[in-house]
């Protein structure tokens, strides 16, 4: 499969975009030429120069440094969200498929209730009650989206449990727990990874969207959505201040989406051969 990923231009473009954002996030302190939080009103709206590669914003902060640090915020929230959603989704989804019966029905009903609430309503309620903060925004996104992950994993796990090789495993003496860990989980993992990779894109967009609306992060954080929101006032005078964070969100989300879609095509193609 790795060879097929390497041969797919779409997957490689996606991987390249993911790699750029990941490297920017990890090595931000060594890449940035300036402190992203230092305000200098005498330096505002400066044109790109060797000191400020992409110029400065409305408060004289280095735009390039803020964009590089923005990768930390976006991925720093999107990846924990994905890990938590993965643990919840895989555990509950597989448990539903393995245990079935009343347990499955109860979890399905509860997830249907959670799916009925729009994410924005849940986030607004939690941030309103508990205040701003990265933990609260992560928690609120997890609360508003766990049901989607659980439902997706459950659907794949139930489909896998119905296959003949599962009956074969039972005949070979495997119990439900062993079947889940040895057969179901490894076989649904490719589909899960596809969903998760597009899920990262959606989580990044959600975090940026909420920051844009002023939900979640303290004012002045170098987060792409928040930067986009702050730059709105200078839309006509300095549209590039909207363009840069917008492009960063687009490129990162596109990276995960492209990779996820390419992975799906590769796996789908493989199963029909």
């Amino acid at each position: 499969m790795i060879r097929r990923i390497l041969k797919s231009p779409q997957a490689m473009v996606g991987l390249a975009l993911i790699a750029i954002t990941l490297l920017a996030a990890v090595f931000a302190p060594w890449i940035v030429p300036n402190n992203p939080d230092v305000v200098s009103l005498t330096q505002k709206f400066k044109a790109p120069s060797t000191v400020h590669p992409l110029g400065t914003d409305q408060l004289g902060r280095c735009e390039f440094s803020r964009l590089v640090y923005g990768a930390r915020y976006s991925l720093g929230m999107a990846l924990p969200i994905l890990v938590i959603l993965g643990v919840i989704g895989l555990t509950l989804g597989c448990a539903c498929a393995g245990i079935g019966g009343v347990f499955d029905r109860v979890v399905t009903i509860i997830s249907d209730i959670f799916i009925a609430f729009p994410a924005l309503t849940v986030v607004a309620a939690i941030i309103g009650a508990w205040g701003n903060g990265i933990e609260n925004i992560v928690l609120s996104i997890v609360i508003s989206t766990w049901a989607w992950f659980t439902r997706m994993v459950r659907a794949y796990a139930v489909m896998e449990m119905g296959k003949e090789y599962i009956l074969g495993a039972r005949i070979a003496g495997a119990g439900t727990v062993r079947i889940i860990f040895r057969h179901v989980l490894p076989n649904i993992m490719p589909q899960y990874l596809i969903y998760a990779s597009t899920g990262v894109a959606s989580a990044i967009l959600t975090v940026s969207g909420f920051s844009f609306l002023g939900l979640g992060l303290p004012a002045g954080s170098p987060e792409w959505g928040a930067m986009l929101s702050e730059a709105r006032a200078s839309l006509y005078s300095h549209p590039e201040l909207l363009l840069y964070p917008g492009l960063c969100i687009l490129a990162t989300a596109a990276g995960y989406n492209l990779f996820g879609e390419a992975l799906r095509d590769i796996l789908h193609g493989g199963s029909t051969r």
Partner: protein
Amino acid sequence: MLEAVRVEKSYAVRTQGRMKAFHAVRPTSFRIEEGASYALVGESGSGKTTLSQILMGLLPPTAGDILLDGASIAGKSARRDRNVAAQLQMVLQDGKSALDPRFTVYDSIAEPIRNLLKLPREKERELVVSLMQRMELSEKHLHNRAGELSGGQQKRVCIARAIAVSPRLIIFDEAVSGLDVIVRKHILDLLKALRRERPCAYLFVTHDMDVAMYMAETIHVMKEGEIVERVTCKGNQTLFVHPYSRLLVSSMA
């Protein structure tokens, strides 16, 4: 050894807006003796597979009981007993879909050994290799996945899995359907040879009277969930008297 006592299986199905009971298996009794060879013959949908899964303890019967050496094993929980699971094995219809697509041939054959015998790694490997040799599978296939093998090879892997734990009964559910005649004959002869080497009862669940006549000493003919005739024929076609059995015999190649 294994006895079905008035087992039946019915499902509730909705027909024209009303719930009705569909009888997959009507009250049926029969015995499987140690080391004997049986066949359960009938058309698709006659309840053969349902009955065989009840016999294996994979499906609970709606009524009746399955007794293994006099002890009840009816229901799913019976197979949690490793001793019961090791005594009753089954070879499923489609070799490819009966094997985990991610598993290598080694892992597939080792699975029942790991679950039911729990041998040390070295002994496990020796057993897997000897089973592969017995099933005429080259050792070079040890690390191939099921999808990379031919239909006949996949079937032999499935049989190797079944005999790995030295069961007392193996149920073959349409075990040779879908294979070309030469491979089919080869596998059936291999099964005959295996039974001479390690005594074990066989139950062939099939729609093919040819296979039943070739392999089984006693044939049970099943129609619409009911065993309509049982004949210890040992290859003699003239002993069948039920019209449905005669129809199956007359359709033989």
